[in-house]
């Protein structure tokens, strides 16, 4: 057994230079130890081009046969420098780049930024604007959970639910397109309110979706959660203890499935959530199946919220008057929303200029992925794929 790094490039390096270890700490090519054979552990590169790494995640996995001994997530393949780019954008332009951070639920990043700016510049937001924000965020949450639920089924080998859920997601995206003008890159929520009022006649397609949402989701639940094989694959896999979840700063459904009741919509109500009635589903065991159950129930709750928002949508202005070249006073604020993945925060520092001095995105999936090293070791390859999928990672947001 040797702790030395693999030094294949030693020969071509200048004398005295130490090669960068090719294997991260923790992964070793050691004898397998299963039997007396001269076998050794296998180091497997999973991704960045792999069907189940949900984007461009690279995993280094140490395998003993099918068993995962150690795993390490390697991120950064989708880094676009969004935080740096934000320093050269005016406040009303920020939506375009922030949409591209968490590309599955752009409204949440936009709203978090708008809330931060409003806090900094002390802008009043009309009640209707808050309600519209909540509406589009909840719709976006459903779309995002659909696009999590489908692929997690595919990770477990079931193709059909994915395509069924795409049908419902398409209905939501059509509504969001009618509201904002774009299917995913919305750029709709601005400091002070939203760009446009809700278009006339948006009620009909929304109600059409509300009418089928619970029923169709129930069918998908029968196909996945009601399936013996799916349950066997998810139960007891990827268990996260509450202490572990807290220690890694996890949030969102991953945290709640471990039994910790923390939802920003309840804990620190923003937009319209203070006036809305909804439940926060909690898990008990903290395994992949709990995360599945929590997210599915969250969709049902979102449907409930959307119904209330639609029924009680107030009259009035959709935005307050905000200067185009907004110059918030020098200062520092943090605002966060409950994105589909957890606490999505914007930490904003202004020096009084027309652009932020520094913008930092607290991306929930980044913290949720942090637990991967702990989570994946000890399972089989198939467990690894399911556990990783159950975390709901979006690489655009992790790498930023």
């Amino acid at each position, binding site marked *: 057994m040797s702790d030395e790094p693999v030094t294949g490039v030693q020969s071509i390096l200048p004398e005295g230079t130490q090669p960068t270890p090719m294997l991260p700490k923790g992964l070793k090519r050691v004898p397998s130890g299963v039997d007396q054979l001269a076998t050794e552990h296998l180091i*497997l590169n999973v991704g960045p081009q*792999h069907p189940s790494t949900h984007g461009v995640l690279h995993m280094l996995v140490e395998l003993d046969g*099918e068993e995962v001994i150690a795993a390490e997530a390697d991120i950064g393949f989708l880094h676009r420098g969004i935080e740096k780019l934000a320093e050269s954008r005016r406040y009303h332009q920020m939506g375009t780049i922030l949409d591209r951070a968490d590309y599955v639920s752009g409204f949440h990043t936009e709203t978090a930024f708008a809330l931060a700016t409003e806090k900094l510049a002390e802008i009043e937001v009309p009640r209707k604007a808050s309600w519209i924000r909540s509406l589009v965020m909840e719709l976006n949450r459903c779309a995002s959970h659909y696009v999590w639920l489908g692929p997690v089924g595919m990770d477990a*080998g079931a193709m059909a639910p994915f*395509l069924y859920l795409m*049908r419902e997601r398409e209905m939501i995206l059509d509504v969001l397109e009618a509201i904002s003008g774009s299917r995913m890159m919305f750029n709709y929520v601005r400091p002070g309110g939203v760009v446009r009022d809700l278009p006339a006649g948006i009620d009909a397609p929304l109600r059409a979706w509300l009418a089928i949402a619970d029923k169709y989701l129930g069918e998908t639940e029968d196909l996945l959660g009601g*399936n013996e094989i799916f349950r066997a*694959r998810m139960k007891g896999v990827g268990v996260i203890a509450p202490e572990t979840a807290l220690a890694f700063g996890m949030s969102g459904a991953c945290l709640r499935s471990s039994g910790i009741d923390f939802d920003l919509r309840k804990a620190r109500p923003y937009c319209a959530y203070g006036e809305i009635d909804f439940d926060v589903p909690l898990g008990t065991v903290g395994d992949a199946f709990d995360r599945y159950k929590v997210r599915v129930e969250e969709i049902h709750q979102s449907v409930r919220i959307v119904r209330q928002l639609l029924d009680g949508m107030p009259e009035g202005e959709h935005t307050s008057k905000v200067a185009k070249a907004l110059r918030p006073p020098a200062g520092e604020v943090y605002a966060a929303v409950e994105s589909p993945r957890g606490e999505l925060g914007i930490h904003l520092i202004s020096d009084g200029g027309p652009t932020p001095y520094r913008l930092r995105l607290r991306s929930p999936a980044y913290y949720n992925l942090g637990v991967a090293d702990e989570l994946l070791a000890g399972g089989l390859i198939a467990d690894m794929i399911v556990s990783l999928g159950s975390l709901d990672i979006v690489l655009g947001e992790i790498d930023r």
Partner: protein
Amino acid sequence: MSLFLAILLRFVGLVALLLVNGVVLIYMLRKVLARLHLRIGPNRTGPWGLLQTTADVAKLLTKEDLRATPTDRLLFNTAPYLVFVPAFMAYIPIALSPVLVAAHLDTGPLFVFAVLSMVPLGVVMAGWASNSKWSLIGGMRAAGLQIAYEVPLLLSALGPVMIAGSLDPLRIVAAQSGTWLGFIPRWFVLPQIVAFFIYAIASQAETQQTPFDMSEAESELICGFSNEYGGMRFGFLYLAEFSNMFIASAVGTLLFFGGWQLPWVATPLWLAPIVFIVKVYIGIYFMMWARGSLPRFRMDQLLGFAWKVLIPVSLVWVVLSGVVIRLVSR
């Protein structure tokens, strides 16, 4: 007709059956899965997309024959044939009608299972020779899976064979003619219902389809043992998979569903192959249905299921039906 010509004609007939089956089955799989998935499936090439698979075969045939340098040349090149040839040989004793059979073997089903048990060898070879970790894991999985499920597959075939008192496909089918009580077709699926379910599950595993598609396991191993293959070598591996589907369904039809016979009425000789093919394709449709709607097992659950559930159940069933058959025949 000279002996040589007769053999040649049969050979050509088998190749034609296999190729046509492959092309039709791939088209059928695409359309069936598309219907299950709320998709449309191929519809651009030819009427209703009928020529899509033909175009795909043409593409595979004309593709550059690539082999990565670190692969083991001999094994890499041989493996597809080791998978394909048994699949081809398994067609030999399949009787489409009392007369339409390549070679009349007294031990028909046994021969099929025997040649198909060579397939894991080729799969492991492909996985090993590819010199890719993904392929290696896929090959190992396929071997473990096929060995585990071959046992219940064989045992489940024993029941019908015991009732018919023969391994000869013609006699097995002949034993299924007529009716019980005047209206129930005398198909072995009824007295052997447990054996039939074991056969259906095990053959789904043998043909490596969801929920048993361990060796491919797209979301885990990308493409499993055939990862490094391209062109017609991949085509052979792929074709073998579909031809195995046909074989599994055909043997199932012979053993459990009365072969080429229509229920209640006597089947004219010219109609027999058509009835047989229709029955086989109905069986394949159900296999595809399962493939389109079920998630995948994990490897340990899969092996546990085979060794701890399927094999004991089929052993008990064999003993039970043996005793009952003996008592009834007295």
